[in-house]
């Protein structure tokens, strides 16, 4: 093994959180910073010829290479887990920019009470209302504390939208249910395509409060506080699973990388696959000493560092901690150990596939252009009469209308799935089909967790991460209720036929839901029940910080990127203002 000269900072992972931390430390300190990214380099120019559904959407060109590493899944701990042999329910990215390159760029904030679900729910409905096997926790940080950092994230990405609550003042046309914002969005809402606009009208006539989806596919040219300029979106429709060919969609490579490249103290090594974090093992304290990685030529390298940020994709954060033997692995039988607990996904599905008489021209749009409503989100409606807690957002976006993925959806009245009758319906309905999506909260449960798989290995021979994950009645009943609401909306929109969502049964690894799989290295107020403190600092190793959505104690309904950016900004401030002066526990 080759040992390199020590550096001040190593950042594992070159996605949104890793590169944001690199940018902040590069701009605000003279520390030597090395970003280790296991995938390849990327830049906007690479995306000039990526508008190919087959290679990018069907064959997953931008995703983590599952032939090398995947995860295993079982629904409960009595089962033997099986590997997810191909991508399905979520899509981890790879390469510089990570999943932040191929995202849809939908950018809502979390509702304020998401950070305090346990105390707010108990307060309002009593602790008996919580599922018996729940593992819900408060985050240890509040919306009010995060708001300034959310605003920085808005400005960084130039998010397009319409505010519904500026410092407590409700504004019609925006999301009146959102947490307070200190300012209007940096750019106005995106253009709204036809399908989304009829959804808005139907929602209004049913008494809801629809608003434009907050979008990092920016509505017009924008220059952010770092001086980075991006063009406005052209609504080509190639957002999700693609990189943006013109850089209108904010991505780490067009928003953070150009700033980082100006800083001589920051370097990015690609093809550097970190396999272990080396540390002084002791029960309660100690420190991380560096990382061992396999470089692009397969050589093992030890990179010593004073300060380490683990900033890989959510699930990979937990796996690397487990592989490195950092912290105590969670045991659901005793509920002891904190590493790997509180695995959550999202209750995300197409609530209704609606078939219309008129063509929708759905090839035009962007991953985030559309309309959503939050009337049924969080605890914004009274749950005393409902058999479930919490909720989520319904939306009509103009994403994912590419023909291989979408042609073939036909009303239930068409019985065949191939041949002339099916073909006729498939051709007719291809551009007359719209989907109302739902994205809802997933509560944390004691038996939904992660550990290392005893059987299956990655291409290095290291154990894969094992997910023990299934839905509970709360999610199933929420899904049923939201499906009936979406049906009402689709009928109000004038749909001729509607195919409702078939309901949640066992967790289905083949149906794409969202790439927002969270938890495992959660934040909280004590080392017994969390892995990191509210500054994302590891409880035992004070020079190790674990960034990203692995820190979420349970999932919110919204897309996580603005929240992980806000949390990263907050950590960067704590590092620069406090930790560097006194490298010790921040909480």
């Amino acid at each position, binding site marked *: 093994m080759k040992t390199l000269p020590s550096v001040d900072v190593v950042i594992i992972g070159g996605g949104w959180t890793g590169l944001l931390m690199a940018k902040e430390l590069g701009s605000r300190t003279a520390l030597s910073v090395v970003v280790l990214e296991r995938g390849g380099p990327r830049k906007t120019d690479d995306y000039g010829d990526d508008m190919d559904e*087959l290679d990018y959407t069907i064959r997953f060109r931008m995703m983590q290479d599952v*032939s090398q590493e995947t995860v295993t899944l079982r629904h409960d701990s009595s089962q033997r887990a099986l590997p997810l042999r191909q991508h399905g329910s979520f899509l981890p990215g790879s390469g510089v920019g990570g999943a932040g390159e191929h995202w849809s760029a939908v950018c809502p904030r979390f509702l304020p009470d998401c950070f305090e679900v346990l105390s707010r729910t108990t307060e309002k409905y009593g602790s008996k209302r919580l599922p018996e096997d729940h593992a819900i926790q408060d985050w240890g940080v509040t919306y009010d504390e995060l708001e300034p950092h959310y605003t920085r994230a808005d400005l960084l990405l130039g998010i397009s939208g319409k505010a519904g609550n500026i410092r407590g003042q409700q504004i019609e046309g925006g999301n009146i249910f959102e947490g307070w914002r200190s300012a209007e969005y940096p750019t106005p809402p995106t253009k709204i395509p036809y399908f989304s606009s009829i959804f808005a009208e139907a929602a209004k006539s049913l008494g809801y409060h629809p608003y434009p989806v907050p979008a990092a596919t920016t509505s017009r040219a924008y220059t952010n506080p770092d001086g980075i300029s991006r063009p406005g979106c052209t609504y080509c429709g190639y957002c999700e699973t693609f990189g943006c060919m013109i850089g209108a969609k904010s991505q780490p490579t067009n928003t953070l990388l150009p700033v980082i490249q100006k800083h001589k103290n920051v370097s990015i090594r690609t093809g550097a696959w970190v396999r272990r974090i080396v540390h002084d093992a002791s029960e309660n304290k100690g420190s991380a000493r560096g990382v061992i990685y396999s470089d692009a030529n397969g050589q093992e390298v030890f990179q010593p560092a004073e300060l380490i940020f683990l900033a890989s994709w959510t699930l990979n954060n937990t796996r690397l901690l487990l592989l490195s033997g950092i912290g105590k692995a969670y045991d659901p039988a005793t509920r002891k150990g904190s590493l790997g607990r509180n695995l959550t996904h999202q209750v995300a599905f197409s609530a209704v596939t609606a078939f219309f008489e008129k063509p929708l021209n759905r090839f035009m749009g962007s991953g985030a252009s559309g309309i959503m409503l939050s009337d049924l989100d969080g605890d914004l409606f009274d749950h005393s009469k409902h058999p479930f807690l919490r909720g989520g957002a319904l939306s009509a976006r103009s994403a994912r209308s590419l023909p*291989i993925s979408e042609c073939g959806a036909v009303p239930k009245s068409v019985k065949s799935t191939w041949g002339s009758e099916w073909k006729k319906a498939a051709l007719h309905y291809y551009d007359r089909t719209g989907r109302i999506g739902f994205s809802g909260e997933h509560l944390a449960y004691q038996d939904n967790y992660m550990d290392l798989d005893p059987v299956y290995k990655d291409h290095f021979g290291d154990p894969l991460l094992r997910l023990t994950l299934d839905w509970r009645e709360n999610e199933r009943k929420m899904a049923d209720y939201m499906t009936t609401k979406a049906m009402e909306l689709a009928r109000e929109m004038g749909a001729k036929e509607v195919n409702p969502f078939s309901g949640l049964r066992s967790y289905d690894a083949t149906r794409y839901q969202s790439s927002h799989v969270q938890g495992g290295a959660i934040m909280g107020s004590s080392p017994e029940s969390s892995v990191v403190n509210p500054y994302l600092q590891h409880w035992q190793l004070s020079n190790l910080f674990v960034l990203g959505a692995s820190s979420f104690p349970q999932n919110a309904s919204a897309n996580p990127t603005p929240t992980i950016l806000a949390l990263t900004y907050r950590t960067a401030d704590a590092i620069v203002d406090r930790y560097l002066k006194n490298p010790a526990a921040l909480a």
Partner: protein
Amino acid sequence: MRRREFLTLSAASIGGVLVYSLDREVFRLSAQTNQSVRIPLRFFTQSEALFVAAAASRIFPSDETGPGAREAGVAVYIDRQLAGPWGRDRYRYTEGPFEGNAPAEFGYQGKATPQQIYRQGLKGLKGFDRLKAEEQDDTLKQIETTLFFSLLRQNTIEGMFCDPMHGGNIDMVGWQLIGFPGPRMSNYDDVDKHFGEAFRPKPASLRQVTRRKVRPGEDLE
């Protein structure tokens, strides 16, 4: 070295001269003729290609609603996919142990690669291309629930609507059928117009739009 095998595409069925260009794309010229082109096969034998072409044509038939899998060159598309990384299972986690009877929500858990699934499945379709249409449909109904058929159906849809650089959707015949224009650099002026009416720009392929010789994934490794 295997014997060179070819699939012959008839121009008459498409209504124009087929040209097999140097960059291995098939496209159509407008003149009416009976010419045909011979396309070298990468994976299938000639008879296998004929079975696949015939089966794909029952899944996505040429009929009164317009052209189908035959005109789109679906068999050529599938041949190239099978010969490429997808067919060899380059995109799948293939470490054992394998659990053949896993519940559907875990996805395909078997050991066989797409190449092997096709080769095995096609053994059951010997002489398929010479059957009458109704007999072909009956045969396919008997295998409707097999993994082979589900791959064939999915690959047929892919071959209908992929970018022509992949060998299917010849002359964008699939995109024309459904009114999909292919990749467009900008819809800025139109995205919030044409409400309730079909807006159908003339389709263009990725190579036409970018003026670059974009290489398809099946040729990369």
